[in-house]
């Protein structure tokens, strides 16, 4: 028993395992790169890297075909730590290797933390518009807002999962039940044409629903496209049904209605994350090289204000120059509407410094190791000559 454990430990810390794990990681990365053509980067990351096992559909059945990023990365980490403890002998000659591998451990841990903790949002600002929230790329919420009081709005936001499951939601702040009749993860909306009778009547009875047809579309994995969901929501009050609405992020404005003596707004939108500050787009610039359309620079001049007045300043966000504020980083990601709307990418990643430190340590280690090696090589040659 003890010998088996010892053999297992020796295997886990062996160099042979390192080599095998490196080969496996090369195969994994290669497969993920090729699959990216079809699935897009985000899905591929979940399928190959942020998982313990990679599943492939083989003849209709989902089979576990290969260890995933967490397994390989985890084993590499164990292998490396074990090697440090059991195999590496501390010699001045090997200080470079020690540093390089210590840095590598830090890098692996850092990437793991990033994978777990990093959050991405988007922030779209029209010229002159102010927002104090950023939006999720993929997650949606059904926002039902009580707008009766002129001084504040009360929002109940229902996330995607109960909507996708067509559940009925009852919330203490809402005087009606929310019944999800239909949910399309990706859809297109079009106005009903004058040719009545050729299309099936929709089930919407309130708001813009009766004039609009929602058609379900297959999910898109392309990087520059977003899935636009839509849903038919019925609200059932104490006296009966208040009606059925069509909601979708594709609809420009929320739909208003009254219930239980209060006024409400309902909107299916990309999930908002409110921030303790606001950003206003003053000007977006799209500089081109003279006489061409080749982009030279994109920049957004933004005003940053906090409600308590602590911060009120202008910042310039452009390529290779993000804004770092309140634990978030804002990058210039895109633009729309003929250069009058800017799209910023907002990232929260508390562990963003770890890769910098880790890479510095590894580089130092490699330089030390190869420097020592090179010096030894030249000394030997001089001695032999």
């Amino acid at each position: 028993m003890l010998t088996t454990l010892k053999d297992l430990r020796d295997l886990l810390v062996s160099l042979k395992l390192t080599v095998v794990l490196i080969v496996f990681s090369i195969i994994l990365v290669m497969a993920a790169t090729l699959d990216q053509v079809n699935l897009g980067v985000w899905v591929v990351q979940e399928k190959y890297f942020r998982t313990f096992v990679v599943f492939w559909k083989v003849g209709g059945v989902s089979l576990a075909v290969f260890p995933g990023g967490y397994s390989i990365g985890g084993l590499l980490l164990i292998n490396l730590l074990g090697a440090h403890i059991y195999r590496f002998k501390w010699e001045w000659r090997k200080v470079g290797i020690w540093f390089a591998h210590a840095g590598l451990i830090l890098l692996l841990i850092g990437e793991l933390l990033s994978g777990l903790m990093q959050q991405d949002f988007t922030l779209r600002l029209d010229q002159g518009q102010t927002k104090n929230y950023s939006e999720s790329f993929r997650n949606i919420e059904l926002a039902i807002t009580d707008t009766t009081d002129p001084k504040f709005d009360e929002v109940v936001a229902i996330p995607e999962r109960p909507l996708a499951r067509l559940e009925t939601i009852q919330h203490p702040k809402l005087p009606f039940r929310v019944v999800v009749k239909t949910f399309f993860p990706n859809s297109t909306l079009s106005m009903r044409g004058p040719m009545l009778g050729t299309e099936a009547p929709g089930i919407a009875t309130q708001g813009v629903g009766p004039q609009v047809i929602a058609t379900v579309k297959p999910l898109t994995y392309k990087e520059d496209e977003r899935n636009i969901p839509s849903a038919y929501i019925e609200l059932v009050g104490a006296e009966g049904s208040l009606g059925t609405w069509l909601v979708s992020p594709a609809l420009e404005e929320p739909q208003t209605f009254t219930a239980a003596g209060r006024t409400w707004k309902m909107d299916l939108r990309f999930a908002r994350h409110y921030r303790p500050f606001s950003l206003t787009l003053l000007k977006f610039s799209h500089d081109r090289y003279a006489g061409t359309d080749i982009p030279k620079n994109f920049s957004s001049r933004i005003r940053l204000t906090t409600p308590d007045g602590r911060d009120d300043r202008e910042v310039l966000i452009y390529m290779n120059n993000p804004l770092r504020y309140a634990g978030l980083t804002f990058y210039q990601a895109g633009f729309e509407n003929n250069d009058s709307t800017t799209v910023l990418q907002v990232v929260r990643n508390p562990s963003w410094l770890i890769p910098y430190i880790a890479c510095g340590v590894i580089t130092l280690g490699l330089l030390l190791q190869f420097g020592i090696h090179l010096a030894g090589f030249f000394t030997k040659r001089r001695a032999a000559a």
Partner: protein
Amino acid sequence: MKRFLPLAVLLLAALAVVASLLPPRYKGEYDLAAFSRLPTLVNGRIKPLDTVARTSLLVLQGRQSVSTPEGRSASPTEWLLDMLYKPEVADTYATFEIVHPDVLTLLNLTPDDGAGVGKKRFTYLQVSKGLAELARQSQLAEAVEPAVRTPFQRAVIQLRDSVILYQRLQGSLLAPGVSNFLEQLAHFDTVVPAGLAAVSAKQAGQPHDAAAAKALLELSDAAAVLESTGYLLPIPPVGDRGIAAGWRNAGGALRTSLESGQLNPGLATYAGLGLAWRGYQPAAFNTLVHEYRAGLDRDLPGFMGRCDVEARFNSAQPFYTAMLLYVVVFLLAVFSWLKWPDELGRAAFALVILAWVLSTAGIGVRMWLEGRPPVTNLYSSALFVGWVAVALCIVLERLYRNAIGSVTAGLVGFSTLLIAHHLALGGDTLEMMRAVLDSNFWLATHVVTVTVGYAATFLAGFLALLYVIRGVFTKSLDAPTADALARMVYGIVCFATLFSFVGTVLGGIWADQSWGRFWGWDPKENGALIIVLWNALILHARWGGMIRQRGLMNLAIMGNIVTSWSWFGVNMLGVGLHSYGFMDAAFWWLLAFVASQVAFILVGSLPLSKWRSFSAPAR
């Protein structure tokens, strides 16, 4: 006697290099050299007309010289002059290269209608008969995603883009459809006031000169057309001429001339040049060019120097000369293994240094012209990979002096310059950097380091190829040579690990500053990661005793496959934030290269007893 061989070879080669660097000589009485150095703004960069002519021809037909129907060879500048001022003549030159048979069918042409060796060049007259159908097919093809287009769709789109370039170039100085445009411009000072008088008379309801009014109207219509479609922007701004933003095309200059009543002097010059070219008046042509040039020298002191250097650089073609030198290097160095090792070895080494110095000068001039670090696009990355690899080979040869460094330098230098030559067919290689790439700091650090890593991995692979070839097919891989090669490969792999790792990390940091994440599993990032992992694999397998010399060599050859995938293969996937280089025929070359390397690995995997060098009878 033969100890003078290295010196003689070096002198001969140096003479050849100097000859290639002499200023170009143009036949005929027109001062085409001076005309070719006149500046214009194209694609955001101010460049000499010489560059526009050469790169347009490369895009259209893959080579720079033009064969006229009479059978003589025209220089790029001559072609450009005909394009600008005698389009009806230029349309008879076979300058469109079309190889795809379905595209030929589309245009109702057969290969027999083509000109040139290979019968693949066609004239605009031939192509113009099928333009409507070409437009329709390319519209259909454009609806398909670039990554999944068929070769026919890609060929159709490429031909359509070539035709548009051709038409826009022709419509730069001559308004299409206006019969005596140049004459009108020459008489601007009389035509315009007469026309204005006629128009105001007409509006007042009085008798007017209808022809004069019509002439003025034609001119302003021509200005509008020229302004929207002209490709060249050769008219410098009046006043502050250094700023790119002020340069205009002929249409814009004509419009402002009509508004002000004064003909723009630059436009007047180009109109005069056109008349002289059409009217076979070399003396008038030369006078105009020299006067205009003198004016530019006066108003833009020092600025014209850049255009002159670029025009000289274009004609010198230093990388082509270096490519030929590397072939000679390879032959000399390989022969040095058979006979006269000392003399031929030193001759080869001298030529390696000469070729490398020439490449260095070429890269340096490019950096100066563009104001950028050495690697800015795929073309310059190919040049730089070759430069680094040859530099490392020079170091190796100096240490070991067994011609292995020279052979590898010849091989790698030639291959990278050949690849670069084919990459230059996409247009101007001194292009402006797109927004996120517009950072000299990151271009100098991340891109250069990663490219050095690629170069080193390739070098290790080519040294390993030498080991396998010499060991399996010849008896010349004795123990000292084998050991030397093993040490070389090992050392280069260490170097490659360091640089590819640091380069990849710098890329991560750049991405973090720019796109919000250190690592995004983007195809190019994955490719670089695989190179780092592969190099690390070689080292770890060596340290763990899992491979010895032969294993090291086989793994290093595999490194060639890994690096060529990361350098070119990922661009062909067409996805990810890094996809800015998409090629077509290159895919088959990549496949052929990979197949060749796999073949060598298989050969290298033969049992050692089967190797000719190791099957010597037991001592």
